[in-house]
């Protein structure tokens, strides 16, 4: 019997927020073999592919008022790949192709962060930029959130390159 961690992102969605990072955070808290029971205000189809990449099968059932309950159950042999495919924004339409691409892998910290913030500030509403880094940019995230940017990120299959996609607020 699979145990499920309840994750209710309906308040975040109703407030117009981006629940992806919350779901990814929940994912990291799971015990081996544990799944996620997700509550959302719509059927989160693009998320199914992201979760399948991470080794989770899904089953969705509609609730009242157009809301959905989705069970993500760990598959028998989860993939070991660590990365999050940062290409889909499952909460709305897919994100546009990045209008700026940065390779910040060989810059001395904190220069990668400075350049990403500078480039992000030039984006038109809804545009995205992508950046390659050597580390998870933990000090950058609070700055992005404070400015209303959305972001997706994860290590690529090589395990050492971190790809970050940042989207300007609409």
């Amino acid at each position, binding site marked *: 019997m699979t145990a499920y961690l309840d994750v209710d992102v309906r308040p975040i969605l109703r407030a117009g927020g981006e629940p992806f*990072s919350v779901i*990814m*955070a929940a994912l*990291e*808290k799971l015990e081996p073999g544990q799944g996620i029971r997700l509550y959302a205000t719509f059927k989160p189809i693009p998320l199914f592919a992201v979760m399948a990449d991470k080794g989770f099968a899904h089953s969705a059932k509609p609730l009242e008022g157009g809301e959905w309950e989705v069970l993500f159950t760990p598959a028998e042999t989860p993939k070991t790949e660590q990365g999050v495919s940062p290409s889909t924004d499952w909460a709305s339409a897919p994100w546009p192709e990045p209008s700026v691409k940065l390779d910040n892998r*060989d810059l*001395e*910290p*904190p*220069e990668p*962060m*400075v350049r*990403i*913030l*500078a*480039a*992000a*500030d030039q984006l038109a509403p809804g545009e995205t930029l992508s950046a390659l880094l*050597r*580390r*998870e940019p*933990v*000090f*950058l*995230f*609070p*700055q992005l*959130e*404070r400015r209303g940017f959305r972001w997706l990120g994860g290590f690529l299959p090589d395990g*050492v390159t971190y790809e970050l996609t940042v989207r300007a607020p609409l």
Partner: protein
Amino acid sequence: MIGGSLFRWTMAYFAAALAWLLVALALMLGGVGYPAADIASPDTLVLVHAVTIGWLSLAMCGALFQFVPVLVAKPLFAEPWALPALGLLTSGLVCLLAGFLALGGRLPLALWLLPVGAVLLVTGFTLVVVDLGLTAWLRPTGPASFVLVGLASLCATAAFGSIFAFALAGWGGSAGEAVLASGVPLHAIAGLGGWLTLTAMGVSYRLLSMFMLSPDVNERQSRITLATGALAIAVTVAGGALAIGLASGMSAVLLLAGVLGLVSAALYGRDVAGIFRNRKRRQLELNMRIATLSFASLAGVAVLGVALIAVGELAAQVGAFTFLAVFGWLSGLVLAKLYKIVAFLTWLETYGPVMGRTPTPRVQDLVAEGRATKWFVIYYVAVWAGTLTLLAGEPGAFRLAVAAMTLGVAGIIREIVRIRRLADVAHPLRLPGGAIAPHLLFARN
């Protein structure tokens, strides 16, 4: 929120730690404790605990509260505990030192101060250990696993220390007396070797590779370094406690722990050499150049230890050995890293909110390395000279060396305060529109 926000009280912890370092240096200058007094005397206990709890432990806690959440990419388990913990540790240390002064006849005989101090310290350290431990436990790999072993060693150190405090007050019973009679080396090894050294090693892996653009040390490799170090501490604590229980000698246990400790230090040296060798950044910043002096001192500690055992002098020279470990390896590394950490956090706090919107200074614009180099060099030359004067049994020359150390530390503190005040940032960039000058003792967000 995912990510590394600024921990509010890091600067307060650092300030308290530096104040205790100055207290300890003043005590040595004034001829309180070893080498003027016996190494087991109450005066020496005052000095040792001002350094290890006041200076090193508070500085380490302040750094860990900021960096453990960064290591595991999760928020701190309970940020509101940090300031009460600082209050408990400070008041507990004051009580403990007053108790030692009473023990030595410098204050009226009020030995109950020792257990009271121990209880306050244990309460404060419990807040720290639970807070950091539950945070690090979320992703117990790499540097975070060193921190977890360090915290476990801190618990063992505090347990021994509490038993000593109750025994010295006459409340320990016969078991307490037995632990007090032979457990002091266990307390010291768990504290200096386990808590302070293993934690410093773990944090240094990440800081060194981050600031030198070097790949992280291979997890399997660093795990062996940690396992050897953890085994050394476990052998010391468990084997030592067993030896006390059986009322047998402890030299076999300490020898085994020493060999394991030596292997762990050698493996750490190999790991650090790898980080330096694989770095993309050829030019080293001041804090890295100074850190190499700290690594050299750690190697010196290992060589000195082996040499003293070979000539049968370790027991007689344990003061010089400990002095080099505490001031050459640990204090030097912490001072060098404080210099960098304060600059980085101050830069992030001040310029993060306006970065990308207006020109901002670089982190290196906050520091004046040319001026700071001089103070660090004075400090290190003085520490090595101090070690030699202790080995040679020259207390007068030792106080001269301490005077030079104090000068170096005062200079470094002045540089750190100038960083925090943005005193070296050129004017048009210093406070661009929207940037707010940081407070000296806490972060605003």
